[in-house]
């Protein structure tokens, strides 16, 4: 199990930006404090802002995002297998079609068997939002919100804003230009971002808790009371950054899926609130 090294800073929660997190492959890395054991494998994402890719004219350009914990890597097949072992209602053969469609874990060999084609340490995909949420809940976590996920993923490898870091955007576009490989690579192989989170780009898409707030498809034309400025062409005109192609891809994906969909390249990772009482001893 990889651990995050959390270097101690004098007065941490009042100086969140001073907390340095290093993604580390070192075995047996010591945790700073006992309390941190609950967050093993998670990266602390410091408070920051999220700039929605598409927004209503009445919405602010920036949304404040509080500090939170985010899984440093997407959930793997092995981890999800363990979950369905202990939570039989989430096995492929038993799950309600309301909560996961027929593609749910469809590439696994059997209910409790990954099979040769599915690497245990590759990210689990073909999981529904309900299943991802149940997994997170079972681990005392939740799914990150869109704002949190985007806030974490906006960071570069070494700079706070990836978009202006040389090579960062190119690396993402490179990934988008390639078809999804089969089998998927293992998690945690790429370069971690500034906060120690791996694979936010470059491996799979990820569920967010409030994905259904992305209203860029039919809803804006037919069945919502949404402002007219989210209409097709005008939607792009109201967009933050017309060059953020990956951002449009994610927004488009979120608006096109439903909570019981199981999609071949859509996985997830967990998040957790910062607990001001127990986390303050970092």
């Amino acid at each position: 199990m990889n651990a995050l090294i959390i270097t101690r800073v004098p007065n941490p929660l009042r100086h969140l930006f001073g907390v340095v997190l290093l993604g580390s492959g070192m075995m047996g890395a010591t945790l700073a404090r006992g309390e941190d054991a609950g967050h093993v494998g998670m990266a602390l994402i410091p408070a920051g802002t999220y700039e929605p890719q598409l927004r209503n004219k009445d919405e602010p350009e920036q949304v404040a995002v509080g500090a939170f914990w985010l899984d440093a890597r997407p959930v793997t097949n092995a981890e999800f297998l363990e979950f369905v072992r202990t939570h039989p209602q989430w096995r492929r053969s038993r799950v309600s079609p309301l909560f996961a469609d027929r593609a749910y874990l469809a590439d696994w060999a059997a209910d409790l068997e990954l099979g040769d084609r599915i690497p245990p340490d590759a990210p689990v995909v073909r999981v529904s939002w309900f299943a991802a949420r149940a997994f997170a809940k079972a681990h005392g976590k939740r799914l990150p919100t869109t704002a949190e996920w985007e806030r974490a993923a906006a960071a570069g490898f070494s700079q706070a804003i990836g978009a202006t870091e040389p090579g960062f955007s190119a690396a993402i576009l490179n990934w988008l230009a390639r078809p999804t490989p089969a089998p998927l690579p293992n998690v945690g192989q790429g370069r971690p971002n500034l906060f120690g989170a791996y694979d936010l780009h470059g491996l799979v898409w990820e569920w967010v808790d409030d994905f259904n707030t992305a209203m860029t498809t039919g809803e804006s034309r037919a069945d919502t009371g949404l402002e007219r400025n989210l209409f097709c062409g005008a939607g792009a005109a109201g967009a933050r950054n017309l060059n953020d192609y990956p951002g449009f891809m994610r927004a488009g994906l979120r608006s096109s899926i439903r909570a019981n969909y199981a999609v071949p390249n859509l996985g997830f990772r967990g998040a957790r609130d910062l607990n001001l009482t127990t986390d303050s001893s970092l």
Partner: protein
Amino acid sequence: MKPSFHLIIASVLGALTATAGETPAACCAVLPTEKPACCAPVPAAKPACCAGEKPSAPLSDKSLYQLEGEWINDAGQPTVLTSLRGRPVILALFFASCEYACPVLVHDMKRLLAALSDDVRPTIQRVLVTFDTTRDTPAALRAFRERMELDSSWTLLTSTPADVQELAMLVGVKYKQDARGQFAHSNLITLLNGEGEVIHQQVGLMGDVSGAAKVLNESGK
């Protein structure tokens, strides 16, 4: 942000404790006597009523009533979705301070009811669920009921953000709050059969309700 997370946590804890112990006691203890199918035959004096006397058949795997969680009606009484089991439902998600779409949505539901045959209409349960879980307290829902002249055949419900979100996901309703506190949202009227399975959805406002009426008229036979 913060309070809603607490609510979510509370709901998680609630769900955990609920599954650990006797589940449905809440629905019997507090609900008014005329209402719930699950409690009707049980004498009010027995507190542990529902534990052994739930509707016997398990829910179908397409039933929305598989959603756990505790809901609160506009009388401030807790309830569970399975208490709707037994009769068809017309369901919409809304918020009470809505300026335009929601009154129209309710009007559409009334038009749909008007289009039903006289023998089917009284059997249909009308359910409105708010996604404005912060502002739509039972009192706010009660005010909406009065404003919209909704009689006792209408059930107005709220819950935790997480439970409302799951229900919205199941019926495919999207909603998003803007900076003024208004919600952009899908306008959908969902028809459920007695088992809580979606049998039809009416998309958009002021549409033709004859298709939905036909589905309900036939489901009542």
